[in-house]
Each structure stands twice: as C-alpha cells, then as structure tokens.
C-alpha cells in the first residue's frame, strides 16, 4: 500500500515542502512585524553553504546544522541592523544580502573545494529517519506503517521539527499576547510604542529568528536532501517562499497549506519527468514551473486586507 503512487507523491511533497515551510514561518513572523526581507533567498543559500562546510569540516552533521543556523542568524542580524536600527530601505538591503550571499557562498565553496572538502564523509550528512537515536528495527517499523509511515516517518529529522515549529508559531500568533504584539508591530507600531513595547528590539529579534530558520532550511537542502553543495543551488526558492507567504495570507495555516500544495506540484512534475515527459516537453518548462505557479497563485488569489498594514516601512517614520 505504501508503494501506491498517491502515497509516494504525497511523501515526496512533504519532503519538498519542509524547507519552504521552515523558511516561510520566519518570513511570515518578520513580515507580520512589518519587516519585508527579500534577502531570504540569500539566507537560504548561506544556510546551504554553511551547513555543508560545517558538516564537511567537522565530519558531523549536527555541527553543520548548527553552523547553518548561526550563520543565517548572523546575516539576518546584519540585515536587521541596516533596516531596523539604521532604518534603511528594506528591499534594497534585502537585494544586497542576496548579492552578498551569492558571492560569499561561491567564495566559501571554492575555498572548501581547494582544501579538499568538496564531498561529505559518510556520517556528515543526515539520513532519513525522523527520531534520532531510535533503533533501526523501530525506525523500520515506523516507516512501514501504512500511509503515515512514508508521509511522516520516512522523512528527514527536520521535518518533524518543522511541524512542531509551525504548530508553535501558529499557537503563538493566534492564541497568545506575543502574537497580538507581533501583529501590532506591523499594523500599528506607534500604538506598540505607546504601550511600552520596544518596537525595534522586537523587530530585530524576529528578523534574526527568521534568519536562523532560513539557515536551517538551507542546511536541509545541502546536508539532508542532496548531501552536497553547488553554487546557486537554491535557484530562486527563497523568492518562491516570499510568494507562498503572501499566498498563505500571512497565516501559518495558510502558509503550510500553500507549501504542501506547492510540494505536490513539485513531486508531480518530477514524477512526470521521470516518466519520459521531458522527452516531449523541454526541460526549461519544468525549470520555470515553480515561478509560473507562484506568479499565477498570486494573480488568482482574492485580495483581502489580511496583510500587515505597514509592511516594509521603517519605524519611526520621521528621522
């Protein structure tokens, strides 16, 4: 039953959706607080290279993941300093972060290659299996469970963590005082300040948290899904995340649904490609598909007023 096509595709969709959800949660929180970070593509790429070099140098996958999280947070801290503290333009600063990440990851990759760290050693990458430390027989039993086996347990460890983070973020945003504050940071920062909330400190914190999540998502791509790094390997995925955040209407639930839907399309197209459709249709169609889907999704969605009111604006607005 677990070999049924629908289960295989659903499992692949989950695998593809995990980094999108992870990076998207951070971006949603930051945008809710009023900060638009188009540098998320760069943060993902940085996470990829930091995760890879960290794991290759230390020979330990966990160090790679930690390095990706730390470097993602640091780069996001630079972005936060420029945009929140110095109140410079968020879009331009975000694109600068992207340039920085493209150059920085390329340089780091060449240096790592030059020192003979072009490949991961056997245990420097994560293998599938959701619960670390569980015995092989137990893992195999979980994996063979009908339906939920492939969907939930035959995934990388970060998948379960992502689900937990998503659930927590949803709970915090919708059910707690902190959630009210985060919404208010993007809708009415003046009112926040009047209530004694340090607007800029909150925004910096959320942007750095988003950077850490994007870094982890990058590590997922390099040391979990592919066990390798290649320059520009994110290939615009960060920009797709931006589209998914909007399509999910800045809600965690909407984001997760959007990412899963996107994952299904991704799994379907790779399945069709492997079935020989790429002989009929040029591969560039598949290459452009994520971006066409993202654009169409944004074009067909109903307009609402659910977004942060002052997205992209520095606070305080007067100098």
């Amino acid at each position, binding site marked *: 039953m677990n070999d049924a096509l629908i289960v295989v595709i659903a499992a692949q969709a989950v695998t593809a959706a995990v980094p999108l959800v992870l990076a998207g949660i951070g971006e949603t929180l930051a945008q809710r607080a009023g900060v638009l970070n188009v540098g998320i593509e760069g943060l993902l790429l940085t996470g990829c290279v930091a995760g890879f070099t960290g794991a290759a140098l230390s020979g330990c996958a966990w160090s790679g993941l930690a390095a990706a999280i730390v470097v993602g947070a640091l780069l996001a801290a630079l972005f936060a300093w420029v945009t929140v503290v110095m109140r410079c333009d968020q879009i331009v*600063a975000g*694109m600068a972060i*992207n*340039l920085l990440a493209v*150059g*920085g990851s390329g340089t780091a990759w060449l240096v790592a290659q030059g020192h003979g760290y072009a490949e991961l050693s056997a245990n420097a990458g994560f293998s599938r299996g959701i619960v670390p430390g569980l015995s092989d027989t137990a893992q195999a039993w979980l994996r063979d469970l009908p339906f939920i086996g492939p969907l939930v347990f035959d995934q990388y460890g970060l998948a379960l963590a992502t689900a937990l983070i998503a659930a927590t973020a949803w709970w915090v945003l919708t059910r707690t005082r902190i959630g009210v504050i985060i919404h208010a940071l993007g809708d009415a920062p003046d009112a926040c300040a009047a209530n004694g909330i340090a607007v800029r400190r909150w925004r910096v914190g959320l942007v750095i948290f988003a950077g850490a999540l994007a870094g982890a998502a990058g590590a997922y791509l390099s040391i979990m899904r592919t066990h390798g790094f290649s320059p520009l390997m994110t290939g615009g995925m960060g920009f797709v995340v931006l589209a998914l955040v909007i399509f999910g209407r800045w809600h965690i639930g909407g984001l997760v649904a959007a990412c899963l839907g996107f994952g299904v399309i991704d799994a379907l197209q790779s399945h069709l490609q492997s079935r020989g459709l790429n002989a009929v249709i040029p591969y*560039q169609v598949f290459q452009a598909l994520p*971006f066409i889907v993202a*654009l169409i999704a944004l074009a067909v969605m109903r307009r609402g007023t659910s977004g942060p009111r002052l997205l992209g604006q520095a606070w305080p607005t007067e*100098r």
Partner: protein
Amino acid sequence: MRRWLVGSGEFVIAIGAIVAVIIVVLTGLALLGHPPLTVLTTWFQGAAGSGTRFALSLQEAGPLLLTGLAAAVAFRGGVWNIGAEGQFLIGAVTMVAFGTVLLIPGPGWFSLPVALVLSTITGAAWALLATGLERWRGVPVVLSTILLNFIAIAVVGMLVQGPLHDPTTTAPQTALLPEHVRLPVLVDGTKLHLGVLVAALIAIALWLGLKRTTIGFEVQVVGLNPDAARLLGMPVGARQVLVMAVSGGLAGFAGAAQVAGVTGMLSGSPISYGYAGIAVAMLGRLHPLGILVAALFLGMLSTGASGLERRLAIPHDLGDVVQGLLVLAVLVAGGISARRALRPQAEGT
C-alpha cells in the same frame, strides 16, 4: 550654495561607503594572507593597467550603466523593478532572433537600429507584464519582477536550445550575429563598441529629462509621494507605467547592445548585469551622472577582480560580496547623513 552642499553630500556618502568597503575587504584578504598593497596594485593593473585593460573596464561599464539607469529610473519613480536581469535577457534574445533568424531586410544602418529598438520594446514589454499584474491582480511588483527573471531565464534557455540554436554545434548556444548587425568597435584591437557611448549619452539625456522636463518632475514627485502627486492632479498611474517601460526598455537595450557589441551570441552561461545594476544605481545615489561614475567603478572592479583571480587566485565571486557590501554601506551612510542634515531643524521646531 545649498544645492551645491547637497550635491557634495551625496558624493561624500558614495566615497565614504567605497572607502569603508575597501578597508573591510582588504582586511579580510590580509587575514587570508594577501598583503593589501599587492592586492591593490594587482587589482589596478587588471582594471586600468594598460589601454586594453581600461577599454575592457569601459566595455564592462556599458551594460552596468544601462541596468543601473534602469534600476535608478524605476526607484526614483517609486516602482520596485528588480527585474532588470530578465528584461536584459529578453532584450538580448530578441536581438539574436532578429539578427540570425527573423532577418530584417536592408543594409546594416537600417536593420541594426531596428533590431535594437525592437529589443528595447520587448524588454519594456516584459517589464510591463509586472505592471499589468499589479494593476489588474494586485501582485506586488517587487515580487513579480523577481519571479519573471527566473521565467525569462527558462524562456531564453528554451529559445537558445530550440529555434535559435546554432545547427553547426551541439553546445547550447545561438549562431553568431552577422557582421552587419554588430555595433561598430570604437577602438581597434578592443571590443569597446558604440553601445557604450550611446549608454553614456542616454545617462546624460535621462539626467536632463528628470531635471528639466515636466514629466521628469512628475515622475520624481510620484516616486516620493504618490498621494501628494494625485492631489496635485498628476497622472500617477500613467507615470508609473512610463517609468516601468523606460526601465525595462533600458535593460532590454543593455542586453541587445551586449549581444550586438560584445558576445555576438547567447549561450547558457548566466549573466548578472541585472542584479549588479541595483548596486550601480545605489552607489550612484540614483543620479544619472553619479551612475555614470559608479558604472565605471564597478566595471573596473569586475575586470580588476578577474586580474586578481588570475594572478593571486582570489575567487572572482568576491566581486559579488563587494557589490553587496557597497550597497549596504551606501544605504547606511545615506541614512546617517540624512539624520545629520535634519537634526538642526528638529531643534528649531
């Protein structure tokens, strides 16, 4: 007097940012074991050490100037066109199409300008897709232009390996443009072509256009405050469409000029003049003449970086790092200076 002061302030911001970034990068390289003086001299020799090298820097500055102007016009008009990369590619592929397959009849003095104009138009049309999506469906331009970049890469890749593919090779590249649709070379022995001179003239024309014409003034007001522009009775929507068309057209022309002047064809290798244009525009403080200087500087940065790569084995990817740092430094320096300029006023009120 005050005008002069403001102008010099802009200059100080750009220079300050450049100096700060140079210090950071040289320090970083020194820690990796490259003495700063060697780096600087090697860089300068690569960028302007001889006539040919300087011509190469000028040739690199050409597309950077045009994409820089494309970004600056858009940002001045308050339109977040991040899509120069895609518009550049669409312009380039149009040039190849009209040069190699859809031949335009007539001599070179006729077909070359026609092909260039058509490429400018397709670049503008690609940009206006984003404006259309914003008008009718409310899709933010900043995001749609980026997504359209990736779609353009795929479209161009498909054309390069499909209808425009050079039948004499298996490599993913188009046929070479015939001689009569190439831009003439200005200096023998180099690839410094007429397009670079045209780009410089366009910069001057844009400067005058923004400064001296009513439309240019309206564009700037719309960019600074669309609500105020609307209250003043300015045609805000029409000006935004115009800005997007000019911006996309400049990027499209840049792509076409690069094909007709330098490469002569398109291949699968990536080009990043579009994204670099944002750095040029910011470094030039969104001023056409400032951008003229900034493009030359970043052109020299790029040719100098290839010299560094050849002689000192410093990866040329570092050039992207420098561009990113320059943008951040200019942003921060601009922020500091604006705050300083306003401080005495705040005390007065």
